[in-house]
């Protein structure tokens, strides 16, 4: 029974995705269809008419396996053997260091902005 509910709910998520793709393409948005779909689902839930239990099991299931869905894309790095040369490794290292700086800058500044704003304790645990 559980698997049946999950399947139907994934179907609902897929419909939101298709609607998002359609909107993104017909309006020539720079935002991808999946993100438009996410925003649409969020709006639908926020109206209160669309009940969150209609997608809760399906969403929980999909998000539990989220990393799996990336694998076909990430394996695509195989098409670029030039990344495994000296210059390529230099580029990889620069990208990684730049990402570390971004992680530090983001986390640091968002925490500073909270503490200024007389924060409630729970989010800063």
């Amino acid at each position: 029974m559980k698997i049946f509910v999950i399947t139907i709910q994934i179907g609902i998520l897929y419909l939101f995705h298709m609607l998002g793709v359609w909107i993104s393409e017909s309006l020539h948005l720079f935002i991808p269809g999946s993100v438009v779909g996410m925003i649409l689902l969020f709006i639908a839930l926020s109206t209160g008419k669309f009940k969150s239990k209609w997608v809760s099991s399906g969403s929980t299931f999909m998000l539990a396996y989220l990393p799996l869905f990336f694998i076909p894309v990430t394996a695509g790095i195989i098409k670029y053997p030039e990344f495994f040369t000296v210059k390529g490794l230099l580029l990889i290292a620069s990208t990684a260091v730049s990402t570390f700086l971004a992680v530090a800058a983001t986390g640091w500044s968002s925490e500073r902005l909270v503490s200024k704003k007389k924060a409630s304790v729970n989010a800063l645990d």
Partner: protein
Amino acid sequence: MQQPFIAILIILLTIAAYLAMVKVYQRFTYPILIPVLTTTVIVILGLLAFHISYSDYMVGGKWINALLGPAVVALAYPLYNQRHIIMKYSFPIIGGVFAGLFTGMISGLLFAEVFGIKRDLILSILPKSITTPVAIQIAAGLGGVPSMTVVFVMIAGFSGVILGPRIMKWVRIRSHLGKGIAFGSASHALGTSKAFEYGELTVSMSSVSMTLCALLGSVFGPVVVWIFQV
């Protein structure tokens, strides 16, 4: 007759490899053993060992890839559950995303400049902290090479997921809020999948930051290029 069989075989093997790697990660929780990385390595080694091309792999792989869209849509659910706290912390979220986006873009430009990287490659690195489908469009708009951008986006994702937690420890980012915003804005959806190890609040902070980073990145990418006269 043969095509569907191969597709199913590829799907099953990929899922089996992933589930096995999840087990390995649960047993040995070293950051480098994150399942998405180890499974990718297994898939690549498998393709190389059996002389299978990437396009042949995608006969099955595209079905797994097709679930990525609905999975991104599903992020609306934790986002909705955490909506009050997101509204409450909208200021730190926006500030953090801005800080991360500009730090990432400008440091990327500087490194590329120091190492004498060609202009089209520099423009391909620029949107690296942004989720793949948006990053591709930004790169194309700037005059970069979209397929290269995909690789840089992945490297940004993996480096943030693998060493991000250590960086956070160094600069003393202790809150779920700060960690979530950092994962989402520096490492997009891969960072968000890592955020699941910290709980729903971190996931929501990460997915809202990832979305915001994509929106702001598409606006400010061209601005950064213009300011720095790339």
